[in-house]
């Protein structure tokens, strides 16, 4: 199964945007994480933007960056949103409210608590009516999102926008899930074409023949291990460096996703 990568979006501390981060990811500039300003997510109408959660703004921001690079009309593109815990900030507020005697839940907060909130807001912002999935596979949510996206592209022969995101989990929920830094990445995947930034071939392998691919830079490797969405870093780093590389992502305890990456030098 082979797909082309038509656009990339990225947002994390020290990685503000795909184009701005390529040299860092390729290893030619040092990685220096600084706090990320609230993402613009310019696509959102201002009234929706005001009400939106951090997750929504991060997810839509990278989605918009990837789709702009592809030149595709967002209304023609299906989406897959992959996140381990989804709206953890909203869930924290909800559970605090539900622990109080009155339990007065805000209706807006409630409809923002679903795992497909970012998917819904993307639809509102773009008026896209194509299929959209939101999924989770704990630490392997990015790999599961890739699996869903690549099978969709290959079976339907249509483009898919994959958006992977997990934000820092607020206290006290962070005691249960210590994700300390936000990370969002988007990949526009489509049948390979002349305009592909790179192509990749996917296969499933038994686990533990080789370790999942890591990163050379210890600070970046720490980010990869801390945030499920940052499991996308080895792939992004290979694309940025223009390397032909086989990237192994773990998929649960039993399998690995092997991505044979082929950079397109055009």
């Amino acid at each position, binding site marked *: *199964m082979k797909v082309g990568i038509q656009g990339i979006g990225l947002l994390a501390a020290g990685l503000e945007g795909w184009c701005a981060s390529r040299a860092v990811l390729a290893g030619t500039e040092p990685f220096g994480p600084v706090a990320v300003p609230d993402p613009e997510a310019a696509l959102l109408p201002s009234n929706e933007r005001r009400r939106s959660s951090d997750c929504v703004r991060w997810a839509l921001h990278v989605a918009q960056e990837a789709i702009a690079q592809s030149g595709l009309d967002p*209304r023609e593109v299906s989406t897959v949103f992959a*996140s*381990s*815990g989804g709206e953890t900030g909203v*869930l924290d507020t*909800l*559970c*605090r409210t*539900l*622990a109080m005697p009155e*339990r*007065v*839940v805000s*209706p807006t907060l*409630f*409809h*923002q*608590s*679903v*795992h*497909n*909130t970012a998917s*819904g*807001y993307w*639809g*509102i912002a*773009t*008026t*896209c*009516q*194509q*299929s*959209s*999935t*939101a*999924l*989770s*596979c*704990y630490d392997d*949510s990015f790999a*599961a999102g890739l*699996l*869903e996206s690549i*099978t969709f592209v290959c*079976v*339907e022969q249509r483009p898919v926008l994959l958006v992977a995101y997990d934000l820092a989990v607020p*206290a*006290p*929920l962070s*005691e*249960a*899930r210590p994700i300390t830094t936000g990370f969002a990445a988007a990949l526009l995947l489509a049948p390979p074409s002349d305009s592909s930034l790179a192509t990749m071939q996917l296969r*499933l392998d*038994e686990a533990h023949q080789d370790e999942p691919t890591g990163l050379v830079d210890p600070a970046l490797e720490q980010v990869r291990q801390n945030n499920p969405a940052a499991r996308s870093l080895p792939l992004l780093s290979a694309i940025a460096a223009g390397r032909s590389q086989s990237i192994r992502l773990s*998929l*649960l*305890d*039993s*399998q690995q996703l092997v991505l044979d990456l082929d950079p397109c030098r055009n």
Partner: protein
Amino acid sequence: MLPNVQPMTPLTLTASTLVTATGRGLGPVLQALRERRSGLKPCDFEDVTLKTYIGRIEGLEDFSLGNELERFDCRNNRLAWLGLQQDGFMVAVAEAKQRYGAHRVAVVMGTSTSGILETEHAYQARDLAGSLPAWYTSRYRYTHNMFSLGHFVRACLGLRGPAMVVSTACSSSAKVFATADRLLRAGLCDAAIVGGVDSLCLTTLYGFSALQLLSASPCRPCDEDRDGLSLGEAAGFALLEPSTYVSRRGAVALLGYGESTDGYHMSHPHPEGAGAIRAIRDALDRAGLQPSDIDYVNLHGTATRVNDAVEDKAVSSIFGRTTPCSSTKGWTGHTLGAAGITEALISVLCLKHGFLPGTLNCERIDPTLRSWILRANDVRPVRRILSNIFGFGGNNCSLILGTLQ
């Protein structure tokens, strides 16, 4: 213009199982449908004082998961476990595992709130410093995290193939059929366990109450005086195999599906049902069928004012008034992320037993609805059924199930 959907190879439902407030297992669920016996009762969940009816599954409070499953113990996974024990499902999965190998069987589950009830309890049990109790923090991964259900089902069944949890609010466990079809067609597995589990929690009870969408009486889909939904809980599972492997005349199969979004609003459907129409049309195209080929439509039919009106617009624009339609939420309540599998498996019962459930609690059909709404049960041969599920975030999925000819 990008291509439309292509016809699919039917996927046989080799085995299935369902637990709802009306019964444990497909037999009791069928009996309740035939006897028109609802599972909805006045809300008695924990200390909730909301004036509403719920489809609570009795007994979930009375046992816990032990031994190697102890870390997964929470209401949602207890319900999943209860579902897996019914209808000889575990045996059928063991046989499939024997046939294909544990690595070649995928697990695709749907849920909207997973084990959030554990987190709600943990927040109530915070200490003076605001920290969560240790019994909770070490088990978050296995209980509340969105993948917990997939992890649990995979562990129970001893499967080692690809797995994920789809969580798109109410459409979650309808969309699992689509994801499983893609994994099968891509050759990444030979069979798939699809299903969904959602269980009662404070988040959905107080959340739907805040949206003023809960009825104070048992929900009345399509009734002119309908005033909201009733929440329920359910667990359902099906073993899917390509009909090219296991083709049997009369076997029930997934013939088509359609997925779409409204691109309109988080909690209001598109006023013209544009997303719903797209999902239904794609399902028909994938099944290679015309609207006239469909013998019955199982409506999403939540009994909110808006859902039933908009769904009727969409359904009647495609089927006119010639195809019988009904909602079965008067029996089960709205089981949210489990609604897709619940209503798919109710559709399987209709196909196998040649009967249609009339909309329970619908006393006077809303005269503004243009579809043919069934009020009474009907006995007749049924070959193909469309099941609609629409959810928050404007996320829609329609399934077509039928008997292989």
